[in-house]
């Protein structure tokens, strides 16, 4: 079995696969197309298997093969294929359940093995690739090693050459040095030789000169003479003096005098220079002190005491020095003080300057940072702003586009209705406001009307009384006039006149009734209103009034909005000229609080109304 496994490794694996597939298919629903195809493909293999199995087991040797299998299986630790024999004499029966279990177990085992095999194969592949990689790496490294070895050899060679060269150069240098030394020696020797020769020659020359001198000078040369007409006086007018020891001493004296004069002159110059330098130094010091002292006041508190004491020292020193006229002091005594104080101050100045430098650099840096930050903040703000604007613009564009679309597509009913609703709502709102306004007005009117009616009633009563009086008076008259005929005709006229007047009365009464009617009615038509208002004396037409009213209300609302925030500040004089009336009117209210502004506007509107022509 082991042999078989090894020999038919690939075939078996594929077979077993197909088998497993087969089994799984059998387990699964067989109607799948895929499995059918697989089946088709596995047909030759299964045939093969069959043939193989047929070779192992035939009709004739079932028993043997079963026993063989049983043996094999038992040796592998599987339970026996045969049933437990109850009696030895009875032939052992093939236990189907055991067979099946065995088969299942075998199959499971097989599957496990396959899995393991797969794993092993993948691992093998992996390892193979790893191996390949490692091998390539190895070869590469080998190559590298080779090249580096070669390089090393080359470098070693070069190193050797360079060393050789270096040695040669060293040798050359040494040679050159030797040469130089030799040449120097030669030069020196030549120089000495030259000097020697020169000396020798000079000696000879001197000898010759001496000889010549003796020859030429010693014998009285008559030719050597001065032929002069008369001697002239000396340039300084003095007579020549004899050479004596005195003159020698005098000459010495004069020489030293000259030298002394020169030295004195130089000393004077140096003193002057020194004085000037000292002056400069002093001035510098003073300036330093003046420069440092005001600035030091602040830092002195901060800076450790040492510098402070130094400054005080310095100031003391300065005071001392300025008190003593330092020019008269010899350098020795002054020098130390002066130099010390200057040094100190210089140190202070230096540190101060350094500090300032540091500050400046710091400030510079900070400034840089601040600027940076600010700019960044600005930048961010700006960008934010711009983004906002862009968004707004986008929204605007969107809405505009929507509107355009609505317009273009004649807008579907829903949106229009919605929009209309929106508009209606707004309208409603406005109407409500107006309505409340009107209500107010109406109340006023009613009040007025009532007063009118009351007055009219009173008038009627008075007229009644008057008529009654007149009737009584007429009655009396009539009773009195019955005596006169012509009085009768007059009476008729009078009666007619009376009737006319009664007509008028009726009319007025009627109108009164008419006037009363709109009270009960909701004020619907403006015509009616106009009729109504016409009766009111010196009042503008209601339509006008309404217009003004609305206008005023708008105005007022605007004004309230405009003014109130401004007028919260108490001492602000009214703003725009158009609002001046309003501001004047609304100020007391608005000063109390802007909440009352709304109600105030109504009262204000009355004022305004009164102002209207």
């Amino acid at each position, binding site marked *: 079995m082991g042999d078989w496994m090894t020999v038919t490794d690939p075939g078996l694996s594929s077979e077993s696969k197909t088998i497993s597939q087969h089994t799984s298919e059998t387990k699964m629903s067989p109607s799948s197309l895929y499995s059918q195809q697989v089946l088709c493909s596995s047909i030759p293999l299964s045939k093969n298997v069959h043939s193989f199995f047929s070779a192992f087991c035939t009709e004739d040797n079932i028993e043997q093969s079963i026993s063989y299998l049983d043996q094999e299986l038992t040796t592998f630790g599987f339970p026996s294929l045969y049933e437990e024999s109850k009696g030895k004499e009875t032939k052992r029966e093939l236990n189907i359940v055991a067979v099946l279990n065995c088969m299942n177990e075998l199959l499971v085992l097989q599957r496990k093995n396959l899995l393991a095999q797969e794993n092993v194969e993948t691992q093998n592949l992996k390892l193979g690739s790893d191996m390949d990689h490692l091998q390539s790496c190895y070869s590469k490294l080998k190559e590298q090693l080779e090249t580096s070895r070669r390089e090393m050899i080359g470098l070693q060679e070069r190193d050797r050459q360079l060393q050789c060269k270096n040695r040669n150069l060293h040798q050359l240098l040494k040679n050159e040095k030797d040469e130089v030394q030799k040449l*120097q020696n030669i030069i020196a020797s030549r120089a000495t030789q030259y000097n020697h020769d020169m000396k020798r020659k000079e000696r000879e020359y001197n000898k010759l000169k001496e000889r010549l001198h003796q020859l*030429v000078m010693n014998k009285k040369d*008559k030719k050597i003479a001065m032929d002069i*007409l*008369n*001697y002239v006086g*000396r340039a300084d007018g003095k007579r*020549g003096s004899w*050479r004596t020891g005195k003159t020698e001493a005098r000459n010495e004296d004069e020489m030293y005098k000259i030298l002394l004069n*020169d030295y004195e002159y130089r000393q004077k110059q140096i003193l002057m220079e020194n004085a000037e330098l000292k002056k400069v130094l002093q001035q510098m010091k003073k300036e330093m002190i003046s420069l440092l002292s005001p600035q030091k006041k602040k830092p002195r508190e901060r800076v450790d005491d040492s510098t402070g004491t130094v400054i005080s020292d310095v100031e003391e020193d300065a005071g001392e020095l300025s008190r003593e006229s330092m020019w008269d002091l010899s350098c020795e005594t002054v020098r130390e003080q002066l130099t010390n104080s200057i040094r100190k101050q210089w140190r202070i100045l230096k540190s101060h300057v350094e500090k300032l430098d540091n500050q400046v650099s710091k400030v510079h840096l900070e400034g840089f940072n601040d600027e940076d930050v600010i700019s960044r903040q600005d930048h961010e703000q700006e960008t934010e702003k711009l983004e906002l604007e862009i968004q707004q613009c986008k929204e605007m564009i969107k809405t505009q586009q929507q509107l355009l679309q609505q317009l273009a597509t004649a807008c579907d009913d829903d949106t229009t209705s919605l929009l209309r609703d929106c508009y209606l709502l707004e309208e409603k709102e406005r109407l409500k406001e107006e309505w409340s306004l009107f209500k107010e007005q109406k109340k006023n009117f009613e009040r007025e009307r009532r007063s009118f009616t009351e007055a009219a009633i009173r008038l009627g009563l008075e007229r009644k009384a008057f008529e009654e009086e007149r009737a009584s008076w007429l009655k009396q008259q009539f009773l009195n006039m019955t005596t006169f005929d012509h009085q009768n005709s007059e009476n008729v006229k009078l009666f007619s006149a009376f009737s006319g007047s009664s007509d008028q009365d009726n009319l007025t009464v009627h109108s009164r009734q008419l006037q009363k009617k709109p009270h009960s009615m909701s004020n619907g038509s403006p015509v009616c209103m106009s009729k109504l208002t016409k009766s009111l004396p010196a009042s503008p037409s209601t339509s006008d009034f309404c217009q003004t009213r609305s206008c005023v209300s708008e105005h007022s609302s605007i004004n309230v909005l405009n003014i109130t925030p401004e007028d919260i500040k108490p001492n602000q004089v009214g703003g725009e000229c158009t609002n001046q009336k309003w501001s004047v009117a609304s100020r007391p209210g608005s000063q109390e609080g802007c909440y009352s502004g709304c109600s105030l506007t109504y009262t204000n509107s009355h004022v305004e109304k009164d102002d209207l022509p």
Partner: protein
Amino acid sequence: MNFSEVFKLSGLLCKFSPDGKYLASCVQYRLVVRDVNTLQIVQLYTCLDQIQHIEWSADSLFILCAMYKRGLVQVWSLEQPEWHCKIDEGSAGLVASCWSPDGRHILNTTEFHLRITVWSLCTKSVSYIKYPKACLQGTTFTRDGRYMALAERRDCKDYVSIFVCSDWQLLRHFDTDTQDLTGIEWAPNGCVLAVWDSCLEYKVLLYSLDGRLLSAYSAYEWSLGIKSVAWSPSSQFLAVGSYDGKVRILNHVTWKMITEFEHPAAINNPKIVVYKEAEKSPQLGLGCLSFPPPRAGAGPLPTSESKYEIASVPVSLQTLKPVTDRANPKIGIGMLAFSPDSYFLATRNDNVPSAVWVWDIQKLRLFAVLEQLSPVRAFQWDPQQPRLAICTGGSRVYLWSPAGCLSVQVPGEGEHSPAGTGTSALLFVVWRHTGRTGEAPAISSQGNCPQRLCVNLKAGAQCTGDPLPSALQGRSSPSLT
């Protein structure tokens, strides 16, 4: 700028009197003394032979004429023309003759520097000084004329003797630590004597009047050393020019080097003004072609125009490659001169022969460079103001002042002949010392034709109102007023 007519001259002998009133010039064996202002001949003296050297006495009363070939010195008095004096050195010979500062003694150096004879014009006395050293500058007088320092050589050692000039008494005698002393020079204040060694060794020694060694300075070894030395008129600085092309300035307090001025051939500093002489052949106008050719009296015709241009830095100056295997190679600082106010120092590097460097001594830096077309022959400072006159052997005088540069064509003696035949070459310039009167200075310059010598003289009186116009900075004005 005005020029006189041209005077004859021989041996380059032409000297202003120290008081600036007279001009002495030699023509062969005749000595001509002219009044500077009028240029009229005041005196004319005839010597015994061709004059080789002339010298005014310090009080401008006498003129010394030396005839070295004959070993003769003749002295003439300006006040008494009939007065004469003849000194004969006889067989001892004569190589140098000079006045003592008092103007009453004559120092004659005999041949082979055997001795110096001091002849007095006041008394019959004659003094001899033995062993003078044969060197470039072996005698020097202090400015006040009190003392003379003399280089001596005895027993192969250098000595310096200091004499009192009034009675020629030896004041100090000391040996100097030099291999081969070549020069001595008193500081203008007369208290310090600078002594320098030969070019084989760089060594400057400074001695006090009483013979103490104040300091010794050596910049380097094993190379050619000092070539020129100059005191500043304030005695404050000693400028030492050497063969390495540097000038070292020593101070008078510590006698240490303050600074060294290099003379590089390339100038890169943009602060330095470089004046470059540029020559332009004159454009042939119609006037030049007119016939007959214009008389020279109508005005000099310069053969070519020359003017200064301000070169833009960096500038590289023309250098001469020195021949190193011969003696006295043309390298190093050969000429040095402080301006009379000590503010400027003019130098010439011998391997950049056509350039003059002017240094600002107050700031111790290079101030200006003048590059001429031909090698600079000589330069001299105006004794009155910081103004430098330069001549290059051409027919022009060049003037430099802090305000600018100027080149002036000097009318040659060929004025009366057709142009071109008589070109003059200026070989030296001399400023007139104006003395106490504070007169304006005059330039004397000398032209040299192969055989004939002439003097070009600028009358001082006429040039008073001719300061260097600053507008002409860097430009030449060949025209003559």
